[in-house]
């Protein structure tokens, strides 16, 4: 990699053709869904590409609707607002009303509490890379978790965008070991 990198333009056009997110990581996330047995190469590619489009779309929509437009900033609150106000992004906040997707187990509403206990790596999740989902107060002010989470419900955009926990809860309810 000591070679001179191609200029930005050619990198950009390259990016249009292919994908920049790692397929292997996307595959891992897809596979964390217990009812998925196998995924063909095209589906994997499409999901990865779609995720990139989603990131762009979410960022741009939030920026355009957001309050930081004049200041040329995109902040957390802009995302929370978009997640709340834009229908297509509702799935980020309304896990329970979208239950057909997120309720593979018979008692999805139990959420975390219904599980014998999250797998170790999820427990680790809370401590290390994610802000603690149930004790937002201890976290630096930026990510205010709402009270909704105490019973595993996720109702406000803050829940989502605290949403390490959304992801977590989802993964837990979708993890085979949790019935």
């Amino acid at each position, binding site marked *: 990699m000591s070679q001179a990198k191609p200029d930005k333009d050619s990198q950009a056009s390259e990016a249009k053709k292919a994908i920049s997110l790692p397929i292997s*990581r996307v595959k891992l996330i897809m596979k964390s869904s217990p009812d998925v047995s196998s995924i*063909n*190469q095209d589906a994997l*590619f499409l999901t990865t590409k*779609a995720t990139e489009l989603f*990131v762009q779309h979410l960022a741009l929509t939030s920026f355009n609707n957001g309050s930081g437009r004049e200041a040329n900033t995109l902040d957390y609150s802009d995302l929370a607002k978009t997640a709340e106000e834009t229908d297509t992004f509702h799935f980020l906040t309304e896990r329970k009303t979208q239950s057909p997707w997120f309720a593979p187990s018979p008692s999805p509403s139990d959420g975390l509490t219904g599980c014998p206990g999250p797998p170790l790596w999820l427990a680790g999740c809370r401590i290390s890379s994610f802000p603690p989902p149930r004790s937002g107060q201890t976290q630096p002010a930026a990510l205010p978790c709402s009270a909704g989470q105490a019973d595993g419900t996720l109702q406000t955009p803050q829940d989502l965008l605290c949403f390490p926990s959304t992801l977590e809860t989802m993964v837990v309810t979708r993890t085979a070991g949790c019935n």
Partner: protein
Amino acid sequence: MAERPEDLNLPNAVITRIIKEALPDGVNVSKEARRAISQAASVFVLYATSCANNFALKAKRKTLNAGDVLAAMEEMEFERFLEPLREALEVYKKDQKGKKEVSEQKRKDKEKKNDSENDKSREDEEEEEQRMEEPEEEADEEEVEN
């Protein structure tokens, strides 16, 4: 199955770059916003997978295919992604096909070479057999297993 929490995150550097490309130049994206988008992307993958899987189940298939993912996008009301996705898939398939043709061409060349050498020695023949047993790398129908 993911074993560490980080396994469910997408790489920050790449996410940041994608965000930057989407927004006008010079927009400052806060760290919390970046993290939120990155997490949302992971949620999106799970949501799309779950949705696509439902279509596969309905059709009594075990393997998710491209059609399932496209159907999922429609279901999720991300129709706006359909066209770019179809285009990207076409390019991707062409690329894969191109690679396949190149590697096949190489193989044929080698085989030709071997054919001429086979008269001289039996070892080459064995070598060729070994090569024939190697799986096709770029098979289109390849299923991704764990």
